[in-house]
């Protein structure tokens, strides 16, 4: 708890490598605190973290390809037949 004061400030070039671990809550507490201290005075890294958060949070609206409809319907028909005559 005390030795964190002796560690040098994080540089921006380090912060950009730690962002995902930070957003995932996977950074050691002392490192997370150093990162937050850095963000308080660094608009560039604050913007960067916001952008990474925006990327992570926005992709849920992308469409994902599924099975071709005829394959899907074939499977459901097979399920009906299978369960009727197991």
């Amino acid at each position, binding site marked *: 708890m005390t030795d964190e004061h002796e560690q040098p400030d994080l*540089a921006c070039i380090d912060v*950009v490598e730690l962002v*995902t671990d930070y957003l995932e809550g996977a950074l050691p507490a002392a490192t997370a605190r150093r990162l937050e201290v850095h963000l308080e005075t660094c608009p*560039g890294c604050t913007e960067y973290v916001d952008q990474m958060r925006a990327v992570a949070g926005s992709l849920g609206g992308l469409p*994902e390809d599924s099975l071709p409809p005829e394959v899907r319907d074939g*499977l*459901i028909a097979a*399920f009906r037949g299978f*369960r009727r005559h197991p």
Partner: protein
Amino acid sequence: MTEGNITALRRGDADAFATLIDRHSPAMIRVAMAYVPSRAAAEEAVQETWIAVMGGIDGFEGRSSLKTWIFRILTNVAMRSGARERRSVPFSALADAEDTGEPSVDPDRFLPLDHELFPGHWAMMPSRWPTPDEGLLAGETREVIAAAIADLPMAQRTVIALRDVEGWSSEEVREALEISAGNQRILLHRARSRVRNAIETYYGAVTAEPMDDTATKETDDRRA
């Protein structure tokens, strides 16, 4: 998926089966693609998996979630299919092969590490994106993002699709792909970093860091 749904499947409820297919097939295709050489082969593996689920649901003991069980079957089917094509490696090996240790941001964007005042700090800061209120997927960036994801190496693409597109938890991704927590985060980080870079390139949005410009290339060029 709740116990009630499993009961419905065992009872032969085709609607419950259809719901299950629609919910999981996109992610299953994503995962299968990491093991087999083509989209067609991935769809075949998914189809084969659903047939196995049909036949195995009565024997499913509920020691894992239904989702976990389905994806375990899928991985086995896809690995076997990939092995026939001499392509298949465990996902973790694919991930290791892809990891070139690339920096998340072009190092030229930062001041040198021996800079007197601001070592390793931004020389060209990221500037605020002109994102519409409706979000990144509302405008043309939607195509930029889709293209950036499609260009990712396979392991990164699979992880970002499962985590951020499908909304899986990190635990679910780790379990389905049999990778460590650390590996999962590295792949996610590389993938999100590349997508962020693609958006930034599209917006063309970088600004010179105002507090210090003596070390930037631009200044050197101007002097030259």
